[in-house]
């Protein structure tokens, strides 16, 4: 696989954080929920509050790796008319105002329907930096990953607690941008505590990873985010912010509420300090 270009915003952001001795805070929201206009404002707002990297979910009718919060967000976004084209356009509008690294969190079918090479080209042109494919293990149709990577997108791999040691090494070699450690079995969603084996699990990954290791799935409070960041190179929060959007989707101060919370999470992670 071709490496993502050095100019990639994700790699640059991790390099900057390293010089500042900081860990990364990554925020996930579903694009198009409650509207693509709101997504533009939410991303710009969260970036201004210190979020390091944005994961934008491409809404999908059958998000099998997601829990109820993200699934409902997908349904709201689709009902509001979000499309792959619309998400790409939203990123183009964000780029006029923010340089925050953006990767899309995607199930394959909408990308295949759009056309994988066309998607890769349009995504890069709009300013998307990477793709996190939920249902595309690296050995499955490798030409799809190659098409994304050759266009300049960082293609992130996920590692689960069930992943065997040999496969961890393989995934660590394949991943670009960062390596996503799914820290618990299950779908996305908020949980009360981080798993006990987190430190040990992340240590084995860091030993083989060639890019930063970020931890997600079930992280919702600043304390949990800080705890996760202590073990890895960054923490990812999704469903918690998605639920805030669900609750305040029609409020005039939606962007303020979500951005403020994202800012608290980012501050907690940044306070941990780099390795």
């Amino acid at each position, binding site marked *: 696989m071709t490496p993502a270009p050095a100019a990639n915003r994700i790699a640059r952001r991790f390099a900057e954080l390293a010089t500042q001795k900081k860990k990364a805070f990554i925020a996930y929201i579903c694009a198009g929920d409650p509207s693509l206009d709101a997504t533009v404002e939410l991303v710009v707002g969260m970036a201004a509050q210190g979020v390091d990297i944005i994961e934008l979910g491409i809404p999908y009718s059958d998000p099998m790796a997601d829990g109820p919060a993200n699934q409902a967000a997908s349904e709201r976004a689709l009902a509001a008319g979000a499309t792959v084209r619309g998400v790409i356009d939203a990123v183009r509008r964000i780029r006029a105002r923010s340089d925050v690294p953006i990767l899309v969190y995607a199930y394959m079918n909408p990308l295949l329907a759009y056309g994988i090479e066309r998607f890769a080209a349009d995504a890069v042109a709009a300013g998307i930096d990477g793709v996190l494919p939920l249902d595309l293990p690296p050995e499955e149709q490798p030409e799809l990953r190659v098409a994304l990577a050759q266009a300049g997108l960082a293609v992130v791999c996920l590692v*689960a607690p069930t*992943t065997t040691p040999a496969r961890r090494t393989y995934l660590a070699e394949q991943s670009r941008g960062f390596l996503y450690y799914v820290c618990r079995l299950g779908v996305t969603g908020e949980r009360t505590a981080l798993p006990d084996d987190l430190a040990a699990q992340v240590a084995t990954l860091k030993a083989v990873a060639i890019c930063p290791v970020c931890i997600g799935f079930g992280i919702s409070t600043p304390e949990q985010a800080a705890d996760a960041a202590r073990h890895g190179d960054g923490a990812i929060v999704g469903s918690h912010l998605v639920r805030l959007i669900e609750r305040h989707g029609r409020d005039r101060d939606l962007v303020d509420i979500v951005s403020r919370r994202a800012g608290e999470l980012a501050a907690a992670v940044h306070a941990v300090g780099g390795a």
Partner: protein
Amino acid sequence: MSAIPVVPDAAGRFGRYGGRYVPETLIPALDQVVAAYRAAQTDPAFQAELHRLLTRYVGRPTPLTKATRLSQRLKRRIWLKREDLCHTGAHKINNALGQALLTLRLGKKRVIAETGAGQHGVATATACALLGLQCRVYMGVEDMRRQAPNVFRMKLLGTEVVGVESGTKTLKDAVNEALRDWVTNVTDTHYIIGSALGPHPYPMMVRDFQSVIGREARAQVLEAEGRLPHACVACVGGGSNAIGLFHPFLNDADVRLIGVEAGGNGSGLGQHAARFDGGSFGVFQGMSSYVLQNADGQVVGTHSVSAGLDYASIGPEHAWLRDRGRAEYRRASDAQALAGVHLLAENEGIIPALESAHAIGVLPEIVADLPDDAVVVVNVSGRGDKDVAEIARLEGVKL
């Protein structure tokens, strides 16, 4: 026609179809199922136990019944493969028992399943009760309404039935929920997928467990008619009863293999479940195949009078057979399926499941391009007891 290659390949591919499009958490579990299944296939003890259960518990071999009055009416020699006579009332038990035995081999104690018509749910609940496994079945709430008797049967068998309220509230949403459960409980749980679909090795494994249908039918029709049939006909939802019937005939080039999809009540997207007549290539629920989807790759709702055929995609081997021209597929409307129920009930004294009735209902069309006295094997994949109340409702009859 040249011999049909052996599929799937090691990666679970039937040509461009199949594969494993799943979250990373499931990869080790799928690898484990592949290894356990391969070992079971060559283990005489496993095969003997499965054979013992299929004969003494399920009641196999199921008969091949000459449909005498229907044959006279259609001027062809119609044979019915009687999967409706299996214990639990449909072919689903063949696969459920095979995978439940595999669950024991995997050392797992808990089973989950999805169900549309409820037949796979009942079969899995039955196999779990027999083998002492804990069982939970996911079912769309719309399907629970349509197939209420099966919901209670599962409960009687000690299974927990979980209604799925998300999405279209039908089979595809039940599959999503089952996959979510599996991602969460993968260390102690086996997912018994009920049709020849999903990620590798399910399409292959379910086909193999269901191929007993075609092996028996092939031997039975040879014995009864002294020749192979001109055509084999089966309804196709995910496609497990059809692939089970077709597979042992694949290299019999003169035997036409005809799958019947749910034509619903119209040709517009959302009005039917005819994936080969309105669907296109896509990735859905762990596999690539034909998918009913909109231009943006969103999977759309389907409609069929039968919950078991009401699914937006189709097993990858059917997609492959269709592209090769080895099998052909056509559709039967809701009305044709209901006509099929009456045709079989009134002429043969057999009330078929609404799913199987699709294969019966289009027989008058299918035989039109077969010679007089042609031999036709039709899979009666399930019996219609579960559908009696729904058929009455559809026909405006108050029970």
